[in-house]
């Protein structure tokens, strides 16, 4: 394998690891901000605000890590991921607003939490990535 290919592979691997680490950090800080007030610091507002700010900062770094990751992967992988992101974002927006509208006019009674939209978007992203990978094989 040539030095250039090894360097590219190393760059991709490094950005993949960084993305995985920052994804974990963001999820961990989100869990802390969500459950910490109830189980650890008894709803102390100062601590709660600090964890929210830390979570947002971790989220910003995660966005940058994702951006860097997309820059490192090759053309086709980037196309597959961008298409998957577009589908996931579309499903999230269309589905989210449709559920919100239905809730507002009383068509549905269950609680539509934003966490559900995030999970749906994540699943759609994974499925769309898998389909894209098979499609361009």
């Amino acid at each position, binding site marked *: 394998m040539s030095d250039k290919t090894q360097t590219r592979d190393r760059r991709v691997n490094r950005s993949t690891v960084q993305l995985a680490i920052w994804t974990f950090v963001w999820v961990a800080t989100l869990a802390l901000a969500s459950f910490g007030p109830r189980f650890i610091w008894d709803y102390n507002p100062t601590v709660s605000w600090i964890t929210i700010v830390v979570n947002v900062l971790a989220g910003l770094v995660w966005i940058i890590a994702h951006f860097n990751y997309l820059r490192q992967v090759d*053309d*086709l992988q980037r196309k597959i991921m961008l298409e998957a992101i577009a589908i996931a974002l579309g499903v999230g927006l269309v589905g989210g607003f449709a559920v919100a509208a239905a809730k507002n006019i009383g068509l549905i009674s269950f609680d539509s939490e934003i966490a559900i939209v995030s999970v749906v978007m994540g699943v759609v992203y994974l499925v769309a990535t898998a389909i894209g990978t098979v499609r*361009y094989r």
Partner: protein
Amino acid sequence: MRNRVKELRTERDWTQADLAEQLSVSRQTVNAIEKEKFDPSLPVAFRIARLFDQTIEEIFLDD
């Protein structure tokens, strides 16, 4: 967009993996370009042209 990448590669007895390594892309990308499922970016198209010592227009043919 039609292209002659497979023809040029097989003329040189290169595998898709060989070509992918020289272009610094994945083998899947080379396969998708050869099957005309995917048009490469301009930088990759220039690398292909340089590698085969031809112009981009000689390799990629407008439909």
